[in-house]
């Protein structure tokens, strides 16, 4: 069995704080791996390490069997194969929706402008945002901005999509329009690793759910196993607290 992404014995600390502790994870093609856990459990840091936005202290990361944690690797080439969507959208405020989406295809993949615009418009039409193409991000709702951010990361045809709590900055009404895109991508067969607090959504899309606690995966399995029948006491406690907060 070959994996798209393999993490082996990852360790990462910020100063004296150990954020990822001997964490290992493998992601198969066309699967969605959902990371759950309390804030500060290391979910975001893990995603940022995969995208080489953070360096790791120890361990190895492989993308399609190639070690990307090698310091000699060309980080820009690695990132071209990875799409990343952030909690705070991070659209470029001085560029229109269309320019946001076509920037990387034109400058990084060296596509012609027409080709990039065509591809971007196809994506925008698919996700009902075609009429926003020439708007600036600050004229859009949070849900629309996050959908544009997802489209922007899709425009580089990533091998793997990393989604970092993409609905945490949105009000509940807007959450669904963003999650439905992710469901569509899942049915397209996109390989994804996502951190989320939306347990219902996790149940729908996850092939594997990993519960992170203190920088390590305490429990992993199908959504049914981890979310509805957790064995670990800490997982049970976490889910109980999520349940009390009305998020399950």
């Amino acid at each position: 069995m070959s994996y798209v992404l393999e993490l082996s014995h990852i360790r990462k600390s910020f100063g004296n704080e150990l954020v990822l502790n001997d964490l290992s994870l493998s992601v198969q093609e066309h699967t969605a791996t959902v990371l759950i856990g309390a804030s500060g459990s290391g979910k975001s840091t893990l995603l940022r390490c995969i995208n080489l936005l953070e360096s790791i202290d120890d361990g190895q990361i492989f993308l399609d069997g190639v070690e990307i944690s090698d310091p000699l690797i060309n980080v820009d080439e690695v990132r071209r194969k990875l799409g990343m969507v952030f909690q705070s959208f991070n659209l470029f405020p001085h560029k229109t929706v269309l320019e946001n989406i076509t920037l990387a295809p034109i400058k990084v993949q060296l596509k012609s402008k027409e080709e990039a615009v065509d591809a971007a418009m196809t994506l925008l039409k698919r996700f009902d945002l075609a009429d926003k193409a020439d708007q600036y991000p600050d004229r859009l709702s949070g849900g629309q901005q996050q959908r544009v951010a997802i489209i922007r990361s899709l425009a580089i045809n990533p091998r793997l999509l990393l989604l970092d709590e993409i609905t945490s900055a949105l009000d509940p009404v807007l959450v669904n329009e963003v999650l439905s895109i992710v469901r569509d991508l899942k049915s397209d067969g996109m390989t994804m690793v996502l951190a989320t607090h939306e347990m219902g959504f996790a149940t729908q899309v996850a092939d594997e759910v990993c519960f992170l606690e203190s920088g390590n995966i305490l429990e992993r399995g199908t959504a049914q196993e981890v979310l509805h029948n957790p064995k670990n006491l800490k997982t049970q406690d976490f889910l109980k607290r999520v349940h009390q907060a009305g998020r399950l």
Partner: protein
Amino acid sequence: MSERINSAWSPSSREKERAQARKRISRKQAVVAAVSSIIVIGSLLTIVVTSPGWAVVKKTFFDINYGREVFPTVISGLWINLQLTFIGGACIGVIALGLALMRTTKSPALTPFRFLATAYVDIFRGAPLILIILLVGFGVPALRLHGISSNVIFLGTVAVVLTYSAYVAEVIRSGILSIHPSQRAAARSLGLTSGQTMRYVVLPQAIRRVVPPLLNDFVSLLKDTGLVSILGVTDAVRAAQINASRTFNYTPYVVAAILFLLITIPMTRYTDRAIRQRTNAQNAEGAI
């Protein structure tokens, strides 16, 4: 979606009362402001006009006929200041951008340039402009280098450009540093190189943010071009000085000052407005 404003609306009687009350308050405030202005400005004028030396000052500083006579020479001097400002300003923009980029680069190959740019900014931001003008204006010709012009206008401009490039570089650098790291992370995660990230994502936002402070520096630049007069450049200040020392009447200085103000005050007003708009826009942007 907000509701369309109902055109059939007419204010309630309570609202009409409130509107009248507001009008009364604002009328009262206008009266207070006018009275206070008359008292303060009036007493200041009285102090000046009734001072023992006012008659002499009036003759030597505010001689309207003499002012009219020297006006053409002073304004042709001001033309030099304006030329210096615009030509110098263009050079400053290019050099300052280069310095700011050098100072913010992390590329190891550019380490010596980063070091040099920092030293440059420290020196030229820290030394008084007038000293730089004197050193360049008298020092460079003394070198007797072949091919370097000893034209005082050229050397004066060089000195101003050297100094202002350091100021402006710092303004641009602060703009670059003010762009949130998440913008850079987003750009890099799309595969843009650090150079592309700077060019297409960071710099356009940074420059937009620092336009108002740059306009401020532009006003200062125009004023400071008057300092090149110490090299003997016949700018507005020097033209006024020549006339004043010929007749011992200082009205030409006042003429020069008024001419500078006629340009700088509208520029400052415009800058203030730009800053206000920028602040409002930023507040509307929220977290960004």
